[in-house]
């Protein structure tokens, strides 16, 4: 088929192909060596990334005679400052997860992938690794050249140092992670004495390899192909979302500066096609094609372009945080008029309220009651009905406490086998007890009863109660 007589179908397809040509995804065949430069967003990025310093130092904070924050999995308890959370309180964890899931949703709806660009460990570690690249190997063109160069002693020395530091950071990352679950000071001594146990070593090894590979090699490819959030967040963005955007109205038609031409005679838009925005992008995106899946909204291209505009005396913000609506001449809907903000906000407040409630009602002494199912009741030879219960006394205090169990219910109720219980600290102490009620005192099949546990520790009396039921025969 010759070019002159293209069918309409053919030209439609050709258009698609044209489009696809611009759709350039780097699938890892090329290492991205992004240019690094200063700027407003660069500084903000360092600031937000510094949150991760906590990850490294928090395990060394102490609270009394133990680690301030310790997720003690072998003993099944979490210590957070003075609070101890046992498996029984784990519903709060699901609320916490819900809260953070929605925090991600709401922040993405408002400002795109700010989590990706500023906080995500993949971004932050990669950023630190590339900072090292720059320190050790030089600027982006130098790095590219070094990659291509033959392996000689100089190259070997540079690469060796770099990989050694990468590895050190990776091991440190692994140890720091484990230190949240393992007394941090013990961990260091156990680690070097080969006493830390296979779980600890395994986890450290996993994190070491993970950090080394993900931050050293995978980098933006992890965001492209591995990370589920990257894809989920794509659907949370809408026309009102603020994301780094190239102002095509101002910029196009782009064109290089013509020597000797004055600004007034210029026929081109503001973009001088210097490609600085691409050069700095850690994921190799050309933002001038619009927001796209590779962009982690880190804002570095904004810094790059602003610098160019400053030099040329053109107004800054050719690339800026902007929503599609505004760019297309509309206005941004005020925050409070967006239903998503309300819905997300409501769910988040509910989750927070639940956690607050949970933390404020963490009793020192808790009682759980399990009514035996088989049989539900038995008739005794003196005419009483007997029910069997398993009581579980949870003691969150730091000492074993002798406890007194009482039960209230219908008249003539007798509690059997509930004496002499000592609730072990940090544990659930089970006890099987029986309740007996004269059959004539039962009004119906089910009678509500209340169990109470009472214990004293350092002069303070702790009480836990639990409702249950006494079951009798049908009439």
């Amino acid at each position, binding site marked *: 088929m010759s070019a002159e007589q293209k069918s309409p179908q053919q030209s439609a397809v050709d258009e698609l192909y044209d489009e696809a040509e611009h759709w350039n995804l780097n699938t890892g065949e090329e290492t991205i060596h992004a240019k690094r430069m200063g700027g407003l967003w660069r500084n903000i990025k360092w600031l937000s990334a510094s949150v991760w310093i906590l990850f490294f130092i928090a395990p060394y904070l102490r609270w009394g005679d133990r680690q301030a924050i310790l997720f003690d999995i072998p003993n099944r308890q979490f210590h957070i400052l003075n609070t101890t959370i046992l498996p029984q309180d784990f519903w709060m964890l699901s609320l916490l997860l819900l809260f953070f899931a929605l925090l991600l949703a709401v922040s993405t709806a408002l400002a795109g992938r700010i989590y990706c660009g500023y906080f995500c460990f993949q971004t932050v570690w990669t950023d630190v690794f590339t900072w090292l690249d720059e320190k050790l190997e030089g600027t982006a063109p130098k790095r590219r050249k070094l990659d291509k160069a033959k392996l000689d002693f100089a190259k070997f020395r540079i690469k060796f140092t770099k990989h050694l530091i990468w590895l050190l950071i990776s091991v440190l990352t692994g140890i720091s992670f484990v230190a949240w679950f393992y007394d941090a000071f013990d961990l260091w001594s156990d680690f070097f004495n080969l006493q830390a146990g296979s779980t600890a070593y395994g986890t450290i090894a996993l994190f070491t390899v993970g950090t080394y590979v993900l931050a050293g090699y995978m980098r933006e490819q992890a965001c492209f192909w591995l990370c589920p959030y990257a894809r989920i967040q794509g659907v949370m963005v809408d026309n009102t979302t603020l994301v780094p955007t190239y102002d095509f109205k101002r910029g196009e038609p782009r064109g290089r500066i013509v020597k000797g031409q004055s600004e007034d005679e210029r026929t081109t838009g503001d973009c001088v096609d210097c490609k600085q925005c691409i050069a700095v992008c850690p994921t190799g995106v050309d933002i001038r094609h619009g927001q796209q899946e590779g962009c982690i909204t880190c804002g570095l291209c904004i810094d790059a372009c602003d610098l160019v505009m400053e030099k040329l005396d053109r107004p800054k913000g050719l690339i800026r945080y902007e929503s599609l609506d505004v760019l297309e001449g509309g206005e941004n809907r005020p925050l409070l008029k967006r239903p998503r903000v309300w819905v997300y906000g409501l769910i988040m407040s509910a989750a927070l309220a639940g956690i607050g409630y949970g933390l404020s009602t963490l009793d020192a002494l808790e009682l759980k009651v399990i009514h035996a199912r088989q049989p539900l009741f038995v008739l005794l030879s003196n005419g009483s009905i*007997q029910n069997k219960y398993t009581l579980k006394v949870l003691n969150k205090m730091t000492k074993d406490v002798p406890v007194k169990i009482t039960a209230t219910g219908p008249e003539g109720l007798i509690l059997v086998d509930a004496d002499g219980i000592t609730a072990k600290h940090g544990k659930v102490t089970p006890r099987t007890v029986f309740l007996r009620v004269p059959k004539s005192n039962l009004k119906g099949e089910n009678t509500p009863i209340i169990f109470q546990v009472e214990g004293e520790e350092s002069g303070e009396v702790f009480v836990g109660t639990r409702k249950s039921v006494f079951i009798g025969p049908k009439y």
Partner: protein
Amino acid sequence: MADNNPFPGENNTGHIWDDNIRELANPPPRWWMIAFWASIAWFLGYGVLYPMYPIGQKPTEGVMGWTQIKEYQEGLDEVVAVRAEFENQLKDMSAKDILANPGLADYTVASVKVLFGDICAPCHGGGGQGGPGFPVLADDDWLFGGTVETIEQTIAMGRKGIMTAHGKILSDDEADKLADAIAAGNPTSDPNFLQKGCIACHGMDGKGMQMLGSANLTDGIYRFVPGEGESIKDSVKQTILHGVNDVTDPQTREAVMPSFGDRLSKDEIKKLAVYVYKFGGGQ
């Protein structure tokens, strides 16, 4: 072929069909190749470490010497080792001593639960709730006694209740009246209770004799629970007329507890006795 390739420079293999459909020689992405070789390396390594290659009759053993049975045995040994501490103590203790020691009693209940489920629960129910024709173990009405020793004896030796069928010496009307009195929990109110010799086994007061395994007829707890659509009285009358384990009467009640002395160890029986005792009716 390479010389007249109509699509030069696109890295095709030279295989071209229908003018323009051609096979390209693009390598798979690097990560894919890495994963590909890594899985092969994994496979080979696994085969060295673990049993795998079927050579001859048996697969290769693997240098780690791991087998499923071995792992199972190790797990089992671990359990036995944990239990040993308690089991050694239990060995020389009587059931009564065990009951007096809360920690050991708890251990006993926890550790023998499975055995109870295997051996006893089919008739007596998982919680000792009994079943049609099988006595409740969770109440305090015992035919042969509710001390832990008698329970132990019952498990070891078995039990067999005996009551002759009274259909021949009682008219239907008399049996009816007697059943009424028993169902009301007051057997002695019927003169026949004395005259027809019920007292010989059930006692002057009708409260039964554990030596004989005769039932207490006054406490409203019945060895033979009424079946579907039956009243308590109907079922009592049935027992009076046809007896229990009376070979001369084909309609007699069957009530046999088999002996487990030759099937279970002494320690197991002891532990089961403690378990049954702890259902809540032990005396």
